């Protein structure tokens, strides 16, 4: 297992290298540069600026400089957000994005698994059909439709619960207060709930027909124990392999959610950075996301091997 882990982590290095190279040259191929503004800068100043950021050197040399600095953990200054280095910006933004993503994933797993199990236990009854229809809705309605709808329902008009009126803030981060988190986390979690519920139902239906479940039933175990202790372990396997892509989908979703709710996460930096030709910022965010995805895929594989004794990692 240890040997496997080491080899996997070493294997991540070429992957990261490919990502950095692709992103670097694609970004530089874009027309325009970071110092294009409404009002053109005097040529001397522009030349000085470019020299200060090494932008006057040949592309290959810039690439070499970037690579050698990045290896040492120096991702350079941001071109647009003056006075900030890329590392500082990501350091500020990542906790916001991570907090959003983790809460959303947690919520999605909790609700999605419960719904999936419930639908599987009531297979081909109305409970099953209604859960699956709602799940299909969750998959087909994009985040940027659910976000304004929920904002309108919960943020603008508010809801009355137990005689208390709730009105949630429609945007802003406010230091991560839970009131500000409710709407973005819900919006982010909805499609994941739908996908997880569908996966869970499919796997559970199959597992519940297995012989060892019949044995457990014959032994007289309670239904709850059969499902939670015996069936869930096997039925969770497809879910674990979904976690990697699911997390990538959450990151993608966070691009939109951060934009809609005006949250200071790194997804927003990326879109703005790409549009502003903020080369270093875009590169930094891409590297950050790619490393996250690689690490999480790795953890998912390890979890898979622990849950399924048939899998041997070598």
């Amino acid at each position, binding site marked *: 297992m240890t040997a496997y882990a080491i080899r996997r982590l070493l294997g991540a290095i*070429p992957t990261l290298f490919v990502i950095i190279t692709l992103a670097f040259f*694609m970004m530089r191929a874009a027309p325009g540069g970071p110092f294009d503004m409404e009002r053109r800068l005097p040529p001397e100043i522009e030349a000085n600026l470019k020299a200060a950021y090494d932008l006057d050197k040949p592309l290959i040399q810039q690439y070499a400089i970037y690579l050698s600095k990045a290896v040492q953990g120096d991702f350079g200054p941001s071109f647009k957000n003056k006075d900030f280095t890329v590392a500082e910006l990501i350091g500020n933004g990542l906790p916001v994005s991570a907090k959003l993503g983790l809460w959303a994933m947690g919520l999605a797993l909790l609700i999605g698994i419960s719904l999936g199990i419930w639908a599987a236990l009531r297979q081909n009854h109305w409970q099953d059909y209604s859960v699956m229809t709602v799940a299909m*809705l969750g998959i*087909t309605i994009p985040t*940027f*439709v659910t976000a*304004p709808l929920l904002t309108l329902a919960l943020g603008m008009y508010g809801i009355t619960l137990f005689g208390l009126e709730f009105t949630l803030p429609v945007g802003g981060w406010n230091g991560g207060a839970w009131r500000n988190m409710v709407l973005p986390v819900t919006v982010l979690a909805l499609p994941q709930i739908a996908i997880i519920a569908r996966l869970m139902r499919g796997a559970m239906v199959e597992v519940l027909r297995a012989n060892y479940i019949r044995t457990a039933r014959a032994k007289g175990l309670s239904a709850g124990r059969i499902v939670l202790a015996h069936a869930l372990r096997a039925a969770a396997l497809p879910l674990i392999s979904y976690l990697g892509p699911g997390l990538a989908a959450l990151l993608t979703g966070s691009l939109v959610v951060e934009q809609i709710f005006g949250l200071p996460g790194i997804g927003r930096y990326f879109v703005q950075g790409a549009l502003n030709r903020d080369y270093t910022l875009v590169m930094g*965010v891409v590297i950050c996301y*790619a490393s996250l995805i690689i690490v999480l895929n790795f953890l998912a594989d390890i979890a898979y091997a622990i849950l399924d004794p048939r899998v041997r990692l070598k």
Partner: protein
Amino acid sequence: MSQNLSAALPELKGRSQWVDARARLLRNRAAMASIVILGIIVFLAMFAPLLSPYAYDEVNYDLISCAPGWWPFEAMCTAPGNIFGTDAIGRDIFVRVLYGARVSLAVGLVATIVSLVIGVLYGATAGYLGGRIDDLMMRVVDVLYSLPFIFFVIILMVVFDRNFILLFVAIGAVEWLTMARIVRGQTLSIKQKEFIEAARAAGVGPFSIITRHVIPNVVGPVVVYVTLTVPTVILMESFLSFLGLGIQEPLTSWGVLISDGADQMETAPWMLLFPALFMAVTLFCFNFIGDGLRDAMDPKDR
């Protein structure tokens, strides 16, 4: 005697797996209804210019953000001639939704075809050749899998300045990976079959074997995956449009219409309602058809 007997018996027709699959699909009500609805949407999109008295870019400053005539709620103004209402510069929403359907469906189909061609050829080649070449080719797929692809699509759209054709290609180039994996898996089992051995013995070259014998036999899972790729691609296009990286005005897509509508949701909800409805129904249909096809071709889960 034996001649008489065979003449007396009605000719027995073998039922191929395709006939069976079609029969099962025809019995699946959700899938059949989806096919009909999708057909209607495609028909509307194709004949959009004939179906509306308005052009998709016809501006009317007298009818700004007007509700349709039948709108049951309060609205600033109503436009009886526009059955889905008008947008912020008085364009007819109905005809714009249909033009949006053209773009969204075209993106969905073309990008899916791109991913289909790349994925099937790549997967079949890797699976058929096997050995070290297979290892290498699949290793490349693994590396690409861990790329945060949406970022590359965004960068591509920035680089090529929202080139429409490139949108197709970029999305298609992202979506082929899963297809390649599916096809490779199928190919690995098919290449053990006797008819492949027979072809090889007859001196058919590897390329011909892949295109003539392997690919036709992986159609089943590929068709299922294609119907599920189209909605993914439509969603991705709308997502890019929402970020302002999609198709440019005055042309439109469902994503553009939805993001415009979301901005004006409080004052003019019909601007969000109709494009969102059309898109959701379309995605629903594709998903139901995909599920129906899967059940029809692989009935073990029924």
